[in-house]
């Protein structure tokens, strides 16, 4: 009976999700338009939609599963997520408008064709696209497995994991192939409403239900679980500990805050904006969403008392154990929907970004796809999603291992993407050598089990090597032979005056159905 109620609630919302995603195209010519319409919503989203979309894509199923699991296992260290998102979205105030205006001026749709444009080498865009795809695929798998675990739990075990994985893939592909970034933004509205409502409710309900309120709950935490309340968290100190100390927190937050502003999915959100000011306002409101991330940590800590002894991957279910234990079936269903949408929205944007990168920067190098980039991108979305699904069934550990280097690997693109856009002297050889060294160092450290290395995030160590090599090679070699003026190659933060001018000049020539290429 419980299973039927919760699963029905879930099913109704999944149908609504696909419908909402497809409805997003109403009034936009029903799926017509070029790659820019699909990939970056025709660069037309206002401040509200940008906020909803970026909140939607940034807060993945990790918020419901991993964050509670970390809270349960370690405690305070999980707050690095709050810290890096706040720091990163704050510098997005400068970087967002900069990337937005650069992409708009040159008709670009992502970081791969920004790199190709900056260095005047289309094949470099293809290399970056392949590399970024390797780093992004594991995230799609994480979302698929995340939603699988949620659905199987809230259906009280009646829906098998394998079916749940397939459903995650089907629902997401169901709308993103057709309606692209705009569809993801619309689905994000439903997601954000449910996430805010369910996490807000749980934050009030769980301490009351299990502990007679916050006073008693906090008392017990402080007296019995003090380990969890500071860095390095529970089981952290000494050799063989988790290694999640102050230095780890500082280095990880610093690195991730820089990386999140050039992360391909964040950039997709930036480029979808109608104007630069929508992004500046967003940089102001978006960090406030982080307050919600304290809730799963608190619930993970509460679960320490209610369901002690969860081990390994089971700890990720800390939050759902409380939910299933204390709430009626329909409420379990609704919270399951919120968690599932936290998988679906980010997964949609991950797939969209992979499709965009391949359609624009890889397949476009082949003459037969050059004029059909959007179609190529849509095909790649299905292929990438199917690949992630297939690997989830057949070789789940491959992607789990890859996911260890995802964020730290993506960070190695910082000099080539961000530094290159503000510093003309950086040569192609410098940026490329740095990238190769950075990725090699990340792989070497992570796969040899040395992350963190000496308490410091391995990705930051790799980035330092990356930057050192990039600078050394740049200064040792000659300047790039590129006759284009600085204004054509570099990015800058647009002022309002420039913005108006750009609108007059560029709006009529904005990339239409036949996107111009680099």
């Amino acid at each position, binding site marked *: 009976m419980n299973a039927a109620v919760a699963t029905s609630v879930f099913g109704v919302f999944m149908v609504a999700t696909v419908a909402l995603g497809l409805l997003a195209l109403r009034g936009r010519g029903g799926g017509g338009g070029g790659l820019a319409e699909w990939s970056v919503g025709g660069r037309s989203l206002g401040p509200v939609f940008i906020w909803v979309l970026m909140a939607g894509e940034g807060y993945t199923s990790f918020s419901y599963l991993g964050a509670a699991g970390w809270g349960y296992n370690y405690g*305070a260290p999980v*707050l690095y997520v*709050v*810290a890096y998102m*706040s*720091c990163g*979205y*704050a*510098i997005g*105030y*400068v970087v967002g408008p*900069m990337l937005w205006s650069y992409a708009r001026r040159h008709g670009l749709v992502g970081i791969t064709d920004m790199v190709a444009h900056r260095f005047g080498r289309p094949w470099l865009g293809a290399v970056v696209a392949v590399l970024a795809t390797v780093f992004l695929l594991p995230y799609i798998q994480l979302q698929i497995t995340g939603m699988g675990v949620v659905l199987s739990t809230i259906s009280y075990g009646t829906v098998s994991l394998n079916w749940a994985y397939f459903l995650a893939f089907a629902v997401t592909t169901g709308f993103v192939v057709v309606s692209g970034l705009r569809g993801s933004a619309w689905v994000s509205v439903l997601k954000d409403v449910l996430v805010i409502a369910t996490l807000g409710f749980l934050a009030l309900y769980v301490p009351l239900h299990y502990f007679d309120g*916050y*006073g008693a709950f*906090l*008392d017990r*935490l*402080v007296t019995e679980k*003090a380990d969890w*309340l*500071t*860095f390095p968290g529970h089981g952290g100190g000494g050799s063989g500990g988790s290694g999640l100390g*102050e230095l780890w*927190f*500082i280095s990880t*937050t*610093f690195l991730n*805050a820089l990386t999140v502003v050039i992360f391909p999915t964040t950039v997709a959100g930036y480029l979808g904006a109608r104007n630069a000011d929508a992004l*500046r*306002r967003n*940089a*102001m*409101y978006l*960090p*406030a969403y*982080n*307050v919600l991330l*304290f809730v799963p940590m608190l619930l993970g800590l509460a679960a320490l008392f209610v369901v002690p002894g969860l081990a390994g991957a089971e700890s990720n279910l800390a939050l759902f154990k409380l939910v299933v234990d204390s709430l009626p079936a329909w409420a379990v269903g609704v919270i399951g929907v919120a968690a599932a949408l936290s998988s679906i929205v980010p997964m949609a944007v991950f797939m969209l970004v992979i499709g965009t990168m391949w359609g624009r920067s890889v397949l476009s190098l082949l003459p037969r796809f050059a004029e059909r980039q959007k179609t190529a991108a849509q095909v790649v979305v299905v292929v990438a999603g199917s690949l992630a699904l297939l690997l989830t069934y057949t070789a789940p550990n491959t992607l789990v291992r890859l996911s260890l280097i995802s964020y730290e690997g993506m960070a190695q693109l910082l000099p080539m993407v961000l530094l290159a856009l*503000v*510093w003309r002297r950086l040569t192609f050889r410098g940026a490329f050598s740095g990238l190769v060294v950075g990725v090699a160092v990340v792989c070497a450290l992570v796969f040899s089990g040395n992350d963190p290395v000496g308490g410091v995030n391995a990705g930051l160590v790799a980035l330092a090597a990356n930057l050192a090599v990039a600078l050394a090679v740049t200064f040792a070699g000659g300047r790039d032979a590129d006759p284009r003026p600085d204004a054509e190659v*570099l990015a*800058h*933060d*647009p*002022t*309002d*005056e*420039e913005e108006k001018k750009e609108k007059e000049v560029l709006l009529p020539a904005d990339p239409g159905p036949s996107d111009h290429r680099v």
Partner: protein
Amino acid sequence: MLGVIRRRPQLLWLLVPYVLYLGVLPLVNRVTPLVLGVPFLFVWLLGATLLTPVAVWLTRRADRNAPRGRRRGGRA
């Protein structure tokens, strides 16, 4: 880079979250004093999370109030 900061010193507000979350972490990494029963580290990090939007707002306010001629964007 320095030129940008000279033209738009308000961008320094964006460093506030870095100071609050990272710079002073060794000083605030403690359970006591409790604030209304909440461990101090959590109070601090929650405060930092609430102050980050304020810091960005201060930058934007200064950008909007800057005299027209001086509102050149940051060409680094």
